[in-house]
């Protein structure tokens, strides 16, 4: 079976998604267990496949036995394989984390929830692994549709936001598809590697420029970059905690991955790509600043985290618009680090019992006493987003700064630093409440009062992610030299 690892990564969650609604009729527990098992085995496959790819070079898997460009291929290279590992890891943790939430749903809806969660995972994994631009579109839609439903399951305000998301997401997908059509008209192929070769021979012209712009814009919209993030605050704030945790952590990262893939591995270097990157860089600067400033203005922690995501996605876009080795390393490291950190932050907030703790910043007073472990993880993740050593966020900021200085882009460097200062302001505002403001309802003692501690199913994933943020930071050298360096495009 090992020669089929690339497809098994995707098949595990997909097969489970198909079986879960059937199993759930017999036993809800079995359906839950199946969900966790599927994500876990997907993670195992992804790690194994990535190891093979690192040892033996890119791994091409021809689906249906048809060689590309006639058939569809899966490619496990360090970039795609690494992304798959991130997605599968988060999925595994969230499938555990979702336990208490799913148990509160009716059996059919619980099954639908689990199944959609698995389908979302499937879609994201498919995007990460596919070597075919149209297949990417199909999985983009799988993940989007599943995301719409999961986000909307959080109540009416989430539904309105999700509706907007669905419209914007469809526009994005249509742009992507249209751009793909332009490139297909010019080359006759859909396979990424083949397209890269064919495009070299195509003389630049307005059709190619428009195709590239449409493709890039479509993916950028999916990423919810700065001016197009409007749907995010409501959707993330009101969606169920496991959904927010998973989607905030990985969904936009996967779009960022697709953007990197298209910009650096498919499209030929030239004026069109340069223009696209220049536009992206200003979008990024706007996003970084606007995200940080709007985050400052929020009183709801989850909303604040959403805006911080807008800013942090700006970091990633900035990295790829600068586009040199250091900046791309930073962007990729930030993809990893921010996925772990954001998952951890939303997870920690979501693990607090709703009746005792509001998500208003003031409602977090004394949370450190009630949920010390979750809040410790929250702190580490927050420090990572502020960019303080030795967390992951510091090191990605380091590479990004290095890239900006190498490219003589001083403005970008300053923007990065200013935004992390703003990040410090809004995160320490929360941390101050968590640690230094006494809980109005509890007596002031040195001994923590385990009034209603969060379920261990929620705490374990959050702690794992918190630890991951630290470890990614401390061992980023290993990560960069053994994976990320190989994932960089040839510049």
């Amino acid at each position, binding site marked *: 079976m090992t020669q*089929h690892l690339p497809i098994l990564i995707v*098949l595990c969650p997909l097969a489970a998604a198909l079986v879960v609604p059937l199993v759930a009729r017999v036993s809800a527990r079995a359906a839950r267990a199946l969900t966790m098992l599927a994500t876990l085995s997907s993670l195992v496959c992804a790690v194994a496949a990535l190891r093979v790819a690192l040892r033996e070079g890119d791994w091409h898997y021809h689906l249906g036995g048809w060689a590309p460009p006639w058939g569809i291929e899966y490619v496990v290279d360090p970039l795609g394989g690494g992304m798959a590992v991130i997605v599968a890891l988060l999925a595994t943790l969230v499938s555990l984390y979702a336990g208490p939430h799913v148990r509160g749903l009716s059996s059919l809806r619980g099954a639908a929830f689990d199944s959609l969660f698995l389908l979302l995972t499937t879609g994201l994994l498919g995007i990460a692994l596919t070597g075919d631009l149209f297949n990417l579109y199909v999985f983009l839609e799988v993940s989007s549709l599943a995301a719409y439903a999961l986000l909307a399951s959080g109540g009416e305000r989430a539904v309105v936001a999700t509706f907007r998301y669905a419209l914007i997401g469809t526009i994005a997908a249509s742009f992507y598809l249209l751009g793909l059509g332009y490139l297909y008209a010019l080359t006759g192929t859909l396979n990424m590697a083949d397209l890269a070769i064919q495009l070299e021979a195509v003389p630049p012209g307005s059709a190619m420029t428009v195709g590239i712009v449409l493709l890039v814009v479509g993916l950028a919209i999916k990423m919810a970059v700065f001016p197009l993030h409007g749907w995010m605050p409501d959707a993330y704030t009101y969606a169920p905690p496991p959904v927010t945790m998973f989607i905030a952590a990985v969904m936009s990262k996967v779009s960022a991955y697709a953007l990197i893939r298209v910009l650096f591995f498919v499209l030929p270097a030239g004026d069109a790509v340069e223009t696209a990157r220049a536009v992206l860089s200003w979008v990024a600067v706007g996003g970084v600043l606007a995200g940080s400033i709007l985050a400052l203005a929020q009183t709801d922690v989850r909303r604040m985290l959403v805006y911080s995501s807008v800013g942090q996605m700006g970091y990633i876009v900035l990295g790829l618009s600068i586009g040199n080795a250091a900046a791309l390393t930073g962007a990729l490291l930030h993809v990893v680090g921010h996925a772990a950190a954001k998952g951890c932050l939303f997870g920690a907030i979501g693990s607090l019992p709703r009746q005792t703790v509001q998500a208003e910043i003031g409602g977090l007073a004394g949370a450190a006493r009630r949920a010390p472990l979750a809040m410790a993880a929250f702190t580490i993740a927050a420090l990572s987003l502020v960019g303080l050593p030795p967390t992951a966020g510091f090191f990605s900021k380091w590479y990004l700064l290095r890239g900006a200085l190498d490219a003589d882009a001083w403005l970008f460097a300053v923007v990065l630093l200013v935004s992390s200062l703003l990040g410090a302001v809004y995160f320490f505002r929360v941390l101050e409440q968590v640690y230094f403001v006494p809980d109005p309802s509890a007596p002031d003692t040195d001994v923590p009062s385990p009034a209603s501690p969060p379920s261990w199913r929620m705490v374990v994933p959050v702690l794992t992610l918190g630890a991951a943020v630290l470890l990614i930071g401390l061992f980023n050298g290993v990560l960069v030299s053994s994976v990320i360096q190989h994932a960089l495009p040839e510049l």
Partner: protein
Amino acid sequence: MRSTFGSPVLDAATRLLVPFMWLFAAYVLIHGHDSPGGGFQAGVILAASLILLRLVRGQGSRPNLSSRDAVTCACAGPLLYGGIGVASLLSGGNFLDYGVLPLPMDPVQVRVIGTLGIEAGVMVGVTGVLVLIFDVLAPWDDGTV
């Protein structure tokens, strides 16, 4: 539905029409490989017939597909599709490489059979989902909107 259309003419027409639709669906499915059509179109026709039944004769009419069964179909279709893919994976080929399925025929024939199998999966799945979506979107019997 709040009410069925209940007219005897319509009812009779439906009785007459539905079997033909099923026949047509089967034709579209089977002849998908040499004429326009295939599993998806067959599934749409099948679903259309079931929706028609629902519209004309109400929710509990027979023969029909309950929502729960629709979910089952929706999952069973892809399962059939993926199952054929996995079967070819187990027979030594790549995923969905149905030419390698261990059937006593020449490989191209096997492929035709495999194609038919997956098209059937598509049909079942599409039927199930479309009926399901209709059920979800359609107004409820109890008058809630």
